């Protein structure tokens, strides 16, 4: 059995379309041929994969619903056929519209003297005008340039005159305005100066008064502070002096005591000496 035959047998077995006898023989052959068995398993797996695709529910479109005793099917199919030709009808209609527009606007395409002319007026023959020589063309161009230059020159002169007039009027107007402005400015300045000076004076007075008041208060505070400090200083000094006097008194007392003792010792010594001499 060739490979192709094996493949067909495999498919027949896979879809269970073998007779019982054929089936048994194929199963024996498959048991003895691992390659065949592996292929069978692969195809079986593919069938499982395909089985994943389920049927979908669908509604018949409305136009396919037939009605008894009516000629609806024929008319509906005709309508659908028309729909199928709709794109072609649309293209044809567009073409007809383009042709109509072309006809109504006298659109024409002409090929003449190795030139293609496209235009909207077929009565006017393009290229039928008088042919000029290069010299005539140059003369026409020069004439047109001269006319153009003259026109531009006249326009420029006119514009210049207009500009001069406008500048003169503007200058006069500005001078007048400036003079008025200066005059108004002087008057205002004198008045403003007086007001400014009086303001400065009053402000200075206020500042001076405030300064004096503030200074007086500060001086009083300072004087009180000085007095307090001086009082404290005097008190401290007095206490210090008293301590010094007391210490001096103590020292003096101690010196007197020492002196007295020395005197007593001297007297005792003298007495002793005298006694000894007497003895």
């Amino acid at each position, binding site marked *: 059995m060739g490979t192709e035959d094996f*493949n067909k047998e495999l498919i027949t077995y896979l*879809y269970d379309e073998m007779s019982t006898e054929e089936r048994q023989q194929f199963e024996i052959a498959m048991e003895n041929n691992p390659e065949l068995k592996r292929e069978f398993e692969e195809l079986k797996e593919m069938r*499982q994969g395909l089985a*994943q695709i389920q049927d979908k529910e669908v509604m018949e479109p409305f136009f*396919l619903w037939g009605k008894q*005793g009516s000629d609806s*099917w024929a008319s509906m*199919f005709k309508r659908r056929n028309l729909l199928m030709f709709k794109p072609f009808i649309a293209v044809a209609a567009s073409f007809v519209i383009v042709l109509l527009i072309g006809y109504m606007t006298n659109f024409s395409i002409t090929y003449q003297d190795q030139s293609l002319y496209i235009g909207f007026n077929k009565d006017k023959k393009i290229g039928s005008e008088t042919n000029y020589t290069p010299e005539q063309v140059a003369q026409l161009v020069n004439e047109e340039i001269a006319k153009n230059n003259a026109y531009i020159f006249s326009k420029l002169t006119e514009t210049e005159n207009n500009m001069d007039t406008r500048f003169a009027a503007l200058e006069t107007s500005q001078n007048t305005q400036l003079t008025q402005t200066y005059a108004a400015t002087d008057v205002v300045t004198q008045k403003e100066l007086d007001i400014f000076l009086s303001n400065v004076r009053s402000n200075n007075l206020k500042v001076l008064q405030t300064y004096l008041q503030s200074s007086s208060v500060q001086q009083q505070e300072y004087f009180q502070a000085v007095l307090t400090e001086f009082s404290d200083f005097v008190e401290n000094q007095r206490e210090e002096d008293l301590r010094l006097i007391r210490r001096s008194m103590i020292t003096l007392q101690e010196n007197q005591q020492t002196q007295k003792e020395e005197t007593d010792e001297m007297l005792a010594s003298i007495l002793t000496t005298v006694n000894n001499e007497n003895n």
Partner: protein
Amino acid sequence: MAETLRDIALYHSECLVEKSQKGDNHAFGKLVGLWFKRIYNVALKYFGDHDLAMEVTQRTFISVYRNLDSIKDVKSFKYWLYKVAINQCHEEERRQKRKTWFSIFQSDDAKRMEEINFQPEKEYQRKETEEIMSNILKTLPEEQKAVIIMKEYEGMKFREIAETLGISENTAKSRLYYGLKSLRKTIENSGLNLEYN
């Protein structure tokens, strides 16, 4: 013979197709109602995008309505319907590719796939396994994707898939095998470690 819900629905579909072929618009409406969800989910798994899935589903039923008379055997309606849906998916994918080619900027889906390819850890943290699998499924070639969707989600036998797509059973099996291998390779290359419930 025990009838499953699926068989009942199928029989019901066949009756509705016959009535629709006779001009009963109401029966066609019921037919759409019966199959709308299934076709929408096929397209949703194909694109992973609600708007594109709705577009493809609507185109599919418009095509069915126009070509009802071409169904000779009503028993084959189911396969025919899936065939129309898959073809519409292929066409829409080509339309989207053309749009992407003309567009200067990449679509959100393309950006999302780039994120999956180049930032697997970040993407894994942010998205659910279902969304990742859906995005990876979208990247498969259209033939493989169609077979995987019909087999895995629509539960069709290989014989039915072969009949729907007009291919042999062996081709259907081969496309499925390489589709699954490609999915696995994409997941491995992205470094994703998916865990399935």
